[in-house]
């Protein structure tokens, strides 16, 4: 029923009532059937041959006219007071619909129908249609019309309806007669006196109606109860008026009906009857009103010419006496008539022209003045309506005859709707007229343009203005049903003209109005939980409302299974409003109650707008969900639903296993760990920037059949605690057994969980995400989503840019997303639309974690060690041994074992090396200490095989390294020789670490090294012969035995053994411990000489001086000038320190190399007889200096002096001679070349006489003579050979003569000196 159809005044309202029992679907089916026949051409109306009286409505003159039935299934008595004013509101006919299947005795059925129709006293015609009669049911009941379901049903039906129409038209005649007789006709009056503004209290009286029966109180009391909601087909409706008077009129002509205008009538209002103010005035006005009413009847009867005629009369009359209300109403009727005439346009001409002369004198509005140009008819109509509204508005000033607000509103809305219809039909024309006359849902899309439609000439603005005019504040004072009608119509209008926000606004208004009506039946619990049609309609409303406000179902369309949503504001809409709307939706679905949509809206509210909601509200909403679910379940609904919130899984990581379980990959079986290391060492670059070291951290391997761990970060953005009933890892790929756990995430927090699971076979495991069951929801998979890639973002930006350019704004944005035009036809289209949108929507690429699962690995643990508490105490340099007992606790054997070690010193030393800029020799020392001295060492054994459950012992040597406090033993192990594996396959090892605490005590220290010449500087009394046999090992050994530690030998022995090739190395060893140690020093001089070994006991806190004869060392220049090597693969850095002179550099190098040579020779071992500990003494702390070096090294060129002259010359010591005076002696200078190359030298000799007081006498020509040159080149000296330069000399004078001499290389100008000058003591014979 559409009360606001523009042409509704021209329709005859017929109530279809079910004759119970009848099933609702059956009833509705039949209603539909009957509704097909709502238009009857006047020419088809069955001629009624009865009376002549009512021929006025059955005239065949205007047989092109049409009769429009308005078949309704419900009737609101609320507007009964208007029924006299606007007769189309009245029910003129009742058609009972009976289902023969339900009735055995049709007679009884008919009786029941007869009962029913008593309720509708305004009805002037009744029929009872009995559908689907069975064959055995006799068609003998009087008044009952059997409608067979076979044969020409349509024809039969149309005949019946025509007959019915005839009946009604006949009754119209009677009605008209009645009306004409009335003397007073009252204006309508709202029944409720509390209505404010527009009708303040005054009763609407008609003054001089001619009606003999002016007022009548309600005959049926039900009116007040008003319990029948229009939402359900009423079982019984009620009427205000009594059964009309006799329908006497019998029309001679064909279609013709009379109406029984019940004397009782609609001017119901009992109360008003009392105070009729001015009868006279009413009486005066009556004629106009009668004309108007008659015209209404003509209009309904489809006899337009007559209607026009009467309207004109009415307008004239009402205008004359200022009866604004009726004037307006007559104009309205006239407009309807004109439109109808336009609709039947062939017939337009005559009636209008006919009416024109009547109209023209009356007023400014000349409706028919433009019969030839119907295009402007709508404009005329609107103009006229402006006038009508003015007229209505005028009534408000008068105390009487106020226009009921509903009339005013309806007038506005009718115009709005009319215009909307024109707009949507694309302009004035048949299409528009059809819409206007028949109503129905217009098809959209034909006129979806911005702004003014050039075609229709109707602007949306105009429509809106009309529509909004009808929605004044007085609407709030109307009854709910009226308000619902108004808002519904408004929303329809706005929907038609595609103003979606307005549409949604009024739709929401409607829903809110309906709400209290719905709430009632629920409270009384009489309602079945099955949603009725109206409820589902309401839900559809909600859907549309939410869509317009940007929170429609499509925001949820990101299927919950892909929970990619993060907390971000909605792209569209007004949050405050959205919250309101969703709350309204919630309230409405709560009162239905519709649990699924309650859940839907609650979750949407939380999901989309939680950031705008207060904490308490969030808590309340979330708490309501389980309640709703359980309530829904009680009703037997399937209330399992998916998790609705935002993605709570923020990240998944494979947890690295404990260090002893980490498997380390290796390339192939044949490459042992060490080889790998070597390979790396081969690379010429110390730092390779391109060679990304594969950090093991990046890849974690899981091991089959072992529990693996995953770190999952969960976040709860809401202000309530989230109860997760179960959470487990969901995977793809190889088989995996996850373990589940449950947890509660507190409000607004995130937590990191450790989830377990066991992969059961090797291969690739894809960790998809988590399977989570949030309390009250279904279990679901949650993934982690990658942020959109750059490209994606760019593309989106582009799109946005584009959409900005084409100025899609406002709700058009929604269209862009996935707005579906409510095109009923296009149902398929929107789906496609959405699909095409979905790829752009799904920017979320789930991030799957790929983890490789390797085959089973053995597992070893250290069962025991030989150490106490993992600590060991050692003396510096001590060698000890420890054992580790391993046990295989895994399930497969171990056949590969490799140990590596680290200790605390290395890191320190490295740090020192890297940081400080120490001299190269220091650095070398440090490196040696750090790298070459290892605390731990291990003798690898082959054929390791540790079966599961068995044990294995590993022996490890431990060295007491100075400064070491702890160390780690790392054991790599694996199972390499598996069956069915090739050699090239990568394999994995695991590691066990064993930390060792070390305490290193210093027991001995070596200090104060010196190197001395064997040649004593001062002469002794000894006149022994200088030994020239350096290889006399025996002697030296003797010497050493004598001279060593206890110094027992005599000085003579020294002298005897004194020898050029040896020097003395001395140093102290101090025992700083409180136990004595036996120290053995070994000096290894090479192959030909047995190593020299000395053992001594050093008592606690005492010091022993060690004196060792060491063969002097000769290094070639090449050897001692090579740079100091570096043991670590350290990049060469140019020394930042001050660079020494060349000599200094050379010296430093020489010191370094000689020391190395020296230290190679010496070995010192200590032993503790008490504890049976032994170790080495650190002698590397000894340092050389330049003077020591001079002693130690054998010069490239060395000298030997001899004086040859028989017996008179004595050699006091090296380079000291005693020589008689005035005797010729031959002085021999022997020059050795130790170099590897021949050398050409020049010798210079300078004799001087030195006095005891230190004065030197240089001029010796009077004191001595010599035969030869003091300065002369020598012959070339071959490598490793010598030349002798002989200088015969005779001393004239006694005293001490000193010979200073040196050689100079003629090429390099290097001068070579002897260690001591030659001293000759000249004495008397």
């Amino acid at each position: 029923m559409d009360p606001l159809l523009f042409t509704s005044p021209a329709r005859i309202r017929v109530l279809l009532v079910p004759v119970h029992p009848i099933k609702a679907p059956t009833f509705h089916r039949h209603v539909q059937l009957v509704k097909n026949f709502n238009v009857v051409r006047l020419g088809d109306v069955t001629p009624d041959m009865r009376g002549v009286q009512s021929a006025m409505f059955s005239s065949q003159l205007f047989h092109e006219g049409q009769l429009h039935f308005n078949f309704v299934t419900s009737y609101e008595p609320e507007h009964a007071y208007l029924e006299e004013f606007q007769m189309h509101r009245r029910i003129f006919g009742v058609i009972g619909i009976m289902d023969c299947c339900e009735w055995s005795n049709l007679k009884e059925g008919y009786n029941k129908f007869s009962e029913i129709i008593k309720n509708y006293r305004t009805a002037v015609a009744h029929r009872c249609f009995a559908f689907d009669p069975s064959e055995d049911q006799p068609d003998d009941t009087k008044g009952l019309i059997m409608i067979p379901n076979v044969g020409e049903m349509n024809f039969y039906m149309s005949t019946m309806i025509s007959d019915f129409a005839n009946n009604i038209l006949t009754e119209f005649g009677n009605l008209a007669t009645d009306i004409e007789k009335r003397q007073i006709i009252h204006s309508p009056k709202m029944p409720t006196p509390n209505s404010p503004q527009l009708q303040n209290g005054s009763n609407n009286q008609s003054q001089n109606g001619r009606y003999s029966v002016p007022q009548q109180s309600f005959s049926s009391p039900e009116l007040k109860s008003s319990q029948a909601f229009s939402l359900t087909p009423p079982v019984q409706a009620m009427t205000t008026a009594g059964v009309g008077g006799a329908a006497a009129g019998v029309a001679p002509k064909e279609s013709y009906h009379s109406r029984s205008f019940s004397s009782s009538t609609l001017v119901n209002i009992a109360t008003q009857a009392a105070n009729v103010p001015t009868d006279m005035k009413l009486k005066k006005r009556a004629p106009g009103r009668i004309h108007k009413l008659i015209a209404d009847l003509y209009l309904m009867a489809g006899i337009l010419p007559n209607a026009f005629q009467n309207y004109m009369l009415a307008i004239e009359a009402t205008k004359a006496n200022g009866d604004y209300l009726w004037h307006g109403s007559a104009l309205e009727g006239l407009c309807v008539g004109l439109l109808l005439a336009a609709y039947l346009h062939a017939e337009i001409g005559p009636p209008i022209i006919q009416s024109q002369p009547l109209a023209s004198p009356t007023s400014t509005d000349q409706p028919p003045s433009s019969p030839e140009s119907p295009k402007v008819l709508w404009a005329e109509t609107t103009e006229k309506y402006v006038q009508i509204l003015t007229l209505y508005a005028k009534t408000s000033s008068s105390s009487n005859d106020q226009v009921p607000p509903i009339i005013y509103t309806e007038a506005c809305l009718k115009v709005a709707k009319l215009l909307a219809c024109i707009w949507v039909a694309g302009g004035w024309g048949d299409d528009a007229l059809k819409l206007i006359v028949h109503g129905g849902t217009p098809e959209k899309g034909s006129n979806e343009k911005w702004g003014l439609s050039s075609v229709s000439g109707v602007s949306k603005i105009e429509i809106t203005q009309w529509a909004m005019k009808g929605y004044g504040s007085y609407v709030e004072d109307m009854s709910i049903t009226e308000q619902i009608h108004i808002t519904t119509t408004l929303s329809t209008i706005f929907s038609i003209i595609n103003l979606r926000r307005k549409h949604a606004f009024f739709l929401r208004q409607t829903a809110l109005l309906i709400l209290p009506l719905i709430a009632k039946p629920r409270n009384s619990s009489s309602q079945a939980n099955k949603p009725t049609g109206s409820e589902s309609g309401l839900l559809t409303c909600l859907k549309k409302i939410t869509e317009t406000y940007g929170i429609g179902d499509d925001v949820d369309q990101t299927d919950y299974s892909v929970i990619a949503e993060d907390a971000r504001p909605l792209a569209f809409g007004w949050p405050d409003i959205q919250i309101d709307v969703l709350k309204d939706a919630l309230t409405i679905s709560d009162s239905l109650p519709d649990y699924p949509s309650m859940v839907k809206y609650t979750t949407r509210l939380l999901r989309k707008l939680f950031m705008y909601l207060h904490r308490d509200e969030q808590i309340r909403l979330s708490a309501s969900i389980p309640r709703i679910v359980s309530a829904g379940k009680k009703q037997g609904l399937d209330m399992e639903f998916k998790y609705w919130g935002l993605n709570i899984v923020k990240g998944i990581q494979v947890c690295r296993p404990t260090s002893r379980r980490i498997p380390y990959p290796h390339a192939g079986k044949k490459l042992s760990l060490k080889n790998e290391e070597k390979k790396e060492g081969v690379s010429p670059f110390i730092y390779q920037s391109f060679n990304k070291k594969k950090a093991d951290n990046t890849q974690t391997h899981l091991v089959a059949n072992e529990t693996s761990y995953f770190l999952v970060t969960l976040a709860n953005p809401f202000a309530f605690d989230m109860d997760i009933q179960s959470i487990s890892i969901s995977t793809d790929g190889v088989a995996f057994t996850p373990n589940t756990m449950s947890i509660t995430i507190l409000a607004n927090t995130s937590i990191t969980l450790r989830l377990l699971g066991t992969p059961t076979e090797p291969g690739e495991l894809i960790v998809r995400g988590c399977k989570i069951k949030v309390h009250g929801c279904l279990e679901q998979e949650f993934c982690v989503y990658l942020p959109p890639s750059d490209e994606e973002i760019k593309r989106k930006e582009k799109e946005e840019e584009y959409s900005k350019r084409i100025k899609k704004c406002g709700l058009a944005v929604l269209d862009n997303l996935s707005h579906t035009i409510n095109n009923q036809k296009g149902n398929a289209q929107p789906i496609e639309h959405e699909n095409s949108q979905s790829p752009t929507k799904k920017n979320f690429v789930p991030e799957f974690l790929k983890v490789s699962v390797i085959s089973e690995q053995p597992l070893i643990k250290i069962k025991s060690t030989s150490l106490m508490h993992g600590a060991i105490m050692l003396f510096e340099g001590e060698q000890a041994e420890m054992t580790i007992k391993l046990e295989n606790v895994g399930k497969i054997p171990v056949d590969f074992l490799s140990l590596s070690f680290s200790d605390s010193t290395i890191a320190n030393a490295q740090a020192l090396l890297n940081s400080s800029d120490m001299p190269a020799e220091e650095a070398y020392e440090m490196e040696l200490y750090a790298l070459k001295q290892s605390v731990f060492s291990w003798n690898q054994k082959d054929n390791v095989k540790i079966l599961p459950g068995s044990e294995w012992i590993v022996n490890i040597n431990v060295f007491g390294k100075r400064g070491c406090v702890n160390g780690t033993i790392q054991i790599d192990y694996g199972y390499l020789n598996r069956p069915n594996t090739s050699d090239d396959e990568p394999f994995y090892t695991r590691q066990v670490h064993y930390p060792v605490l070390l305490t290193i005590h210093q027991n001995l220290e070596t200090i104060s090294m010196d190197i001395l010449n064997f040649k004593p500087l001062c002469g002794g009394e000894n006149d022994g012969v200088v030994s020239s046999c350096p290889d006399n090992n025996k002697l030296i050994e003797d010497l050493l035995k004598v001279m060593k530690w206890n110094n027992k030998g005599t000085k003579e022995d020294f002298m005897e053994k004194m020898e050029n090739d040896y020097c003395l190395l001395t140093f102290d060893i101090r025992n700083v411990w409180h136990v004595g140690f036996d120290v053995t020093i070994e000096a290894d001089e090479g192959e030909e000489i047995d190593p020299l070994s000395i053992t001594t006991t050093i008592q606690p806190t005492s010091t022993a001086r060690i004196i060792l004869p060491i063969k002097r060392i000769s290094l070639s220049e090449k050897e001692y000038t090579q740079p100091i090597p570096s043991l670590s693969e350290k990049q060469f850095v140019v020394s930042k320190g001050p660079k020494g002179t060349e000599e200094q550099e050379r010296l430093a190098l020489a010191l370094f190399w000689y020391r190395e040579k020296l230290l190679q020779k010496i070995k010192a071992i200590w032993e503790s007889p008490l504890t049976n500990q032994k170790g080495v003494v650190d002698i590397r702390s000894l340092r050389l200096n330049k003077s020591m070096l001079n002693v130690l090294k054998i010069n490239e060129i060395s000298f030997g002096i001899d004086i040859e002259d028989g017996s008179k010359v004595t050699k006091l010591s090296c380079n000291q001679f005693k020589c008689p005076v005035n005797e010729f002696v031959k002085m021999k200078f022997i020059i050795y070349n130790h170099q590897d190359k021949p050398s050409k030298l020049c010798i210079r000799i300078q004799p001087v006489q030195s006095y005891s007081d230190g004065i030197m006498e240089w001029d010796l020509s009077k004191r001595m003579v010599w035969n030869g040159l003091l300065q002369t080149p020598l012959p070339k000296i071959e490598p490793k050979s010598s030349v002798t330069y002989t200088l015969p000399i005779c001393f004239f004078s006694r005293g001490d003569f000193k010979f200073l001499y040196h050689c100079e290389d003629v090429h390099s100008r290097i001068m070579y000196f002897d260690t001591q000058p030659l001293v000759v003591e000249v004495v008397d014979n």
Partner: protein
Amino acid sequence: MSFYFAIVGTKDNPIYEVEFGTSGTKSAGLDPNSKKDEHRHLNQFIIHSALDIVEELQWSTNAMYLKSVDKFNEWHVSAFISAGNIKFMLLHESKNEDSIRNFFNECHESYIKILMNPFYEINSPITSIGFDTKVRYAAKRYL
């Protein structure tokens, strides 16, 4: 006299809202807070539904000030549309076109200044206190 002023972005999202003037004459009997709240919500709904008309009207004129575009009961909705399709909506009771035009112009000027802030993103809520004061001042001056 009370006013409700909102600036609405291109996505129907409010970027600025303010109410001035006295309200509460109607809420005599009821709890003033809830009534006020309700009223505020209704204001928002009215403004929102009037956007339809603004979108209709904006193509039919090249003036930025669209005058009174909609009427809801006794309330008028005046609109002003910026070049960037930002809608300034004012809900008011009495018609006074000139002063409302001035008010809108002033607000638009302030808005332009906001726009010039490189850190301001179009369509994002305006949180500037300075803007708020300016708008209130303009309201005091013109409305």
